[in-house]
């Protein structure tokens, strides 16, 4: 098994989930609580990666961060090397690609929170931000966990976006799925099978965890 590829993949998935936990919360909060009429526009943009072929998304990200775009030039001037085909570029792409997998469970959890509880908090003098952290987040724990784990699992298995934005650099952007593809191309089926099985087991374990938490199978635990 290619342990370097596995390390890169897990690092990518963990950082993606972490960033989405931070970036996804305000977006999900806005989607849940805003009364703007054009809210559906933002919701559709967030959901776009669900339906777009990864190559299409990857292509646009590549163009957006390339040396000819303002963003690409800005990054190049700041860091000294271009963003495409680096781990950081791949991370950015992964975050965008997994955005709906985090934001949608977050938003669904926030919408479950009784408005009356939120109003009670406000009338007790607690600010909107304070209410978010003291009340809404603890009540949405399961949804936040689901979002983080789903975006982690989704990143584990991404292929098209990695190929478009990351390329295939050992130790930098070569992830497990790319590694499997390479092994098959080289007719090394035994190597591919081992890595594929490993990914299957990990993905299944992750989903087991998510569904178990949401089904509350551990309700016998003291839920203090």
């Amino acid at each position: 098994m290619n342990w370097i590829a596995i390390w890169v993949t897990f690092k990518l998935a963990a950082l993606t989930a972490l960033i989405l936990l931070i970036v996804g919360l305000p977006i999900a909060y806005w989607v849940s609580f805003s009364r703007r009429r054009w809210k559906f526009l933002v919701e559709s943009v967030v959901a776009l990666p669900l339906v777009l072929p990864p190559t299409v998304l990857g292509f646009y990200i590549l163009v957006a961060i390339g040396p000819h775009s303002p963003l690409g030039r800005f990054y190049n001037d700041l860091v000294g090397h271009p963003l495409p085909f680096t781990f950081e570029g791949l991370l950015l792409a992964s975050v965008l690609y997994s955005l709906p997998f985090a934001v949608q469970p977050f938003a669904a959890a926030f919408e479950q929170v009784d408005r009356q509880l939120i109003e009670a908090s406000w009338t007790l003098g607690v600010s909107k931000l304070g209410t978010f952290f003291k009340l809404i987040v603890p009540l949405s724990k399961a949804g936040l966990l689901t979002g983080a784990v789903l975006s982690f699992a989704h990143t584990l298995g991404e292929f098209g976006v990695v190929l478009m934005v990351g390329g295939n650099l050992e130790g930098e952007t070569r992830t497990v799925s790319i590694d499997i593809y390479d092994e098959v191309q080289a007719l090394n089926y035994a190597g591919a099978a081992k890595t594929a099985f490993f990914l299957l087991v990990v993905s299944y374990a992750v989903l087991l965890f998510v569904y178990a938490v949401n089904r509350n199978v551990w309700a016998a635990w003291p839920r203090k």
Partner: protein
Amino acid sequence: MGSMAAEITIHLVKTFPGRAPIRAQIRYPVEGATVLILFGPSGSGKTTILRSVAGLEWPEQGTIRFVSRLWLDTASGVRVPPQGRHIGYMSQDYALFPTYTVAGNIAYGLSHLHSAERKKRVDEVMELFQLRGLEQAKPRELSGGQQQRVALARAVAPRPLLLLLDEPLSALDAPTRLHLRDELRTLLKQLALPSIVVTHDWAEALTLGDVMAVISAGEVLQVGAPIDVFSRPQNADVARVVGVETVVKGRVVEATGGMVRVSVNGTTLMALEAESIGPDVFACIRAEDVVLEQGRASGSSARNHLTGTVQAVTILGALARVTLDCGFPLVAMVTRSTAEEFKLAAGVVVTAAIKAGAVHLISRQGD
């Protein structure tokens, strides 16, 4: 504070798609523990008015002023959020925070205090609301009455300027509700802070209220002392909304065999014995429950036969509203044909018959 001419002004307009707009104007003086009742049927807009005072609802136009504080003035763009109003608000189903303990709920609004002061205040409030021993309980482990006390304790803990209660007793079962009605009255007086209470229950309005505003279809129809509003509704609309037209002060003189004799300004009324009634009561009689008979009362009976003189007759479509003097003012509602047959007019003497079960007794503070 104290002698300062303190006032609450509520003036607001709010429209809803497919519903009557709310156009409310209420202005009344507050001192110490004045309790204002917003009374009306469901959908009348009373909860919207309360929520606007809390800052949870934004009227399109209006002014809300509490003593010297301006909370809302759409003309000059003043919109103070609920966090800046220093109010205590309790919603109909209490909205206790499920992830916090009882003590945690009460301490929730006290994060501006140092931890020692916070603990002291939580202890004080737990004591006042008889919640000792429940500190570590979660809201779902509490009875309805306990939940209500925790919600009230939480609202009161940060020492608000004004307490707002939305149907404080409606989530409770009937026996608990009766018991807690008097307890709530005592608590509100003990807290010595003005409050606004929304209710559609006239017994609650009489027990809790100092001032009462009758609201129907988004408009304030009458503002006054509850007993005056009930016994002297300004017009037919108010009478229809409040439902009970005779409310008089009385004193229980005897209770035997499930019956109570109540003396009302020298006249004796028989009523069914009710639980936990003090000697001082309001006797409440619906106008529809009064039956008129021609001539003076003859003989005696377990139920009430009162001789009275007609003071006024008002025709309301097919019905007639008759005001009698039976030693106290009594309002009867009869059909127009009965009124014509009996030749009812001022000065005519009639008998009013009222079943004992139709005389509702509500305890009141002694004079």
